[in-house]
């Protein structure tokens, strides 16, 4: 599959302020996103840092409501504002702060440079247009291609994601595809314009396990081929272990641990991470109760002072309820937001 699509000048990032060829692919700095609701201001993202380089896969892990999807949407620039509001921080793509760009400039960066794959392909695809139409849209909008050319490229794309009989299926509707095939279509849509960053928001959650594996394998292959950076949002730690290089664990809108996957899984440095890992059912342990994390995540309009995880934490002490821990380096290449990270790490 040819990778050298020519990007029209319009979609080039090179001319934008702050651009540096050698800057990191994607950097998120102290991102804050609020939602203005009837019940108050929900702080969905509370100061999150993220770093992505070419070819790297960063997994973002957390419960529903941890802020991972909101972070992703903020990076893409598709948050509904209002009620959402980016209250602070920077999102830099090769040095260009996306938050300072105009709406139109951001629009042109979407799909061209940063693309997203969504969770449920059945609802994420428009049911009344053919798959070919929805793929061709990308080429016609961003590359100005003719209908015929766009269709040809669409068929090539479907081929690339290994959908059989692509030339016929390009004229079919989303509901005529199986779940796994639909997800491939979504992936094809995301990769159509050869973006450098791919954000996959729970790409396999709605699929069966065997199909999951196929999809993840496909993503991994394509990423390697193109040297793309991938942000994988998931709550499935098994998938993380398989594909990710680095992991960011989020809780209540904050990143509470960031490190390489292997280190994190071996010796988690945050009580939440530790509890998450412990709650994975293990095949070799029988006859015991499954571990759960007691309690519920805080409502985002009402986050208690101090560490948000303190009410559910087995390591919590008084200081945790007054002093909000920040993400600090705990050892080489590892950071955790916990006053007792060292203890957590050494505890077995």
């Amino acid at each position, binding site marked *: 599959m040819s990778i050298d699509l020519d990007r029209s000048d319009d979609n080039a990032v090179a001319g934008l302020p702050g651009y540096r060829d050698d800057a990191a692919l994607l950097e998120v700095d102290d991102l804050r996103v609020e939602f203005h609701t009837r019940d108050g201001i929900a702080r969905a993202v509370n100061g999150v840092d993220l770093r992505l380089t070419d070819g790297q896969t960063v997994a973002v892990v957390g419960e529903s409501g941890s802020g991972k999807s909101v972070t992703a949407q903020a990076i*893409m620039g*598709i948050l509904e504002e209002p009620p959402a509001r980016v209250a602070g921080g920077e999102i830099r793509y090769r040095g260009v702060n996306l938050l300072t760009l105009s709406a139109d400039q951001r*629009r*042109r*960066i*979407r*799909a*061209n440079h940063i*693309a*997203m794959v*969504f969770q*449920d392909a059945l*609802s*994420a*695809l*428009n*049911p*009344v*247009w053919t798959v070919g139409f929805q793929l061709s*849209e*990308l080429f016609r*909008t*961003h590359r100005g291609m003719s209908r015929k050319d766009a269709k040809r490229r669409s068929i090539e794309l479907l081929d690339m994601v290994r959908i059989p009989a692509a030339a016929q299926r390009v004229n079919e*509707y989303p*509901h*005529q595809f199986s779940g796994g095939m639909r997800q491939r279509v*979504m992936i094809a*849509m995301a990769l159509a314009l050869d973006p450098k960053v791919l954000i996959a928001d729970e790409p396999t959650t709605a699929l069966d396990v065997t199909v999951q594996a196929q999809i993840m394998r496909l993503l991994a292959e394509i990423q390697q081929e193109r040297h793309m950076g991938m942000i994988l949002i998931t709550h499935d730690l098994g998938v993380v272990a398989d594909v990710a290089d680095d992991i960011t664990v989020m809780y209540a809108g904050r990143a509470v641990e960031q490190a390489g996957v292997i280190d994190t899984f071996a010796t988690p440095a945050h009580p939440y991470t530790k509890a998450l890992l412990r709650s994975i059912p293990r095949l070799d342990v029988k006859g015991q109760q499954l571990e759960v994390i007691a309690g519920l995540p805080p409502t985002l309009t009402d986050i208690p002072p101090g560490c948000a995880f303190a009410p559910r934490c087995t390591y919590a002490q008084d200081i945790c309820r007054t002093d909000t821990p920040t993400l600090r380096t705990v050892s080489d290449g590892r950071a955790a937001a916990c006053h007792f990270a060292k203890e957590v790490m050494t505890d077995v």
Partner: protein
Amino acid sequence: MGRYVIRRLLQAVLTLFFVLFLLHYLLSLAIQVNGNPARTFFGDKPVTAEQLAAVEAKFGTDDPCLDTIGDPCLGMFGKRMGDWLTLDFGTTFHGYSVTEQIAQAVPPTLILFAISTAVWVLIGITAGVLAAMKRGRFFDYLVRTGTTFTVAVPTFLLLVITQQLVGVSLGNWARSTFGRDSFLGIIFQPSYDHDHPFLSLLVPGILLGAFGIAGITRLSRTSMLENLRADFVRTAKAKGLRPRRVTVVHTLRNSLIPVITLIGFAMADALGGTVITEGIYSIPGMGGLAFSATRDNDLTMVIAIVAILSVSFMLVTLIIDLLYAVLDPRIRYE
């Protein structure tokens, strides 16, 4: 798609048959219960058996089945269907051909419906869609209040008041200020002007649009609201498509699908409404015919009109159902 069409067509034919039978049965029942209308033709004058029989034959009410209440009169049904298929709808009590009268009455009604359909689509759908896009703001509030208003004020009342205020008072002022043949003078008329069919029907046509517009506006708004938050709209944005394309090609396109079916319902409301509108405004359309026929108790005419309007309605519903399948591919593959 083909199977869907065929199935729908067969359903329509079956329903049509039953509707016509139902109408026929009602008419027979009415004659059986009320007595033979041929008798009323003579008023209070004394009548011989032969005269009666002759008139009965003329009106087609000489079948003995009409003497028993409840008899479905299948023979008459067959004959009536035969007649109707050749567009012979019988004669009114005054001796006119029903078919001729109806034929003359069709154009004004068609114009009226064209205007009201335009109102539904141009005003109803547009208002609903815009209200959804400006949710919570003044326009939205205005639209919602407007729809409540059209539902709360019985349309006949609206027609009567408008006719008096706009047709008579405002019209008189317009005619005295600008002349009889001025634009405003023609529009603000309390009744039909056959020299200016379209213009004089503008006001009653818009009011006829009030029958059913509330539903259309509300559904457009609700549908649009749902789709604005839909996942596939989010995907469209994530694809970096231009905002207008997202709105039109994705959000709007999907939102309008259910509205199409509602136009069918609005039409049903308006078909009944046309009797009232044309009655009040003395418009010589099909509704007006029905209006005077009910006053005169001319069952032949009433039944013919109801039959024709019902059949037209079924046709429209059929077209709408097929259109729905064209617009929403998920339906086609059921």
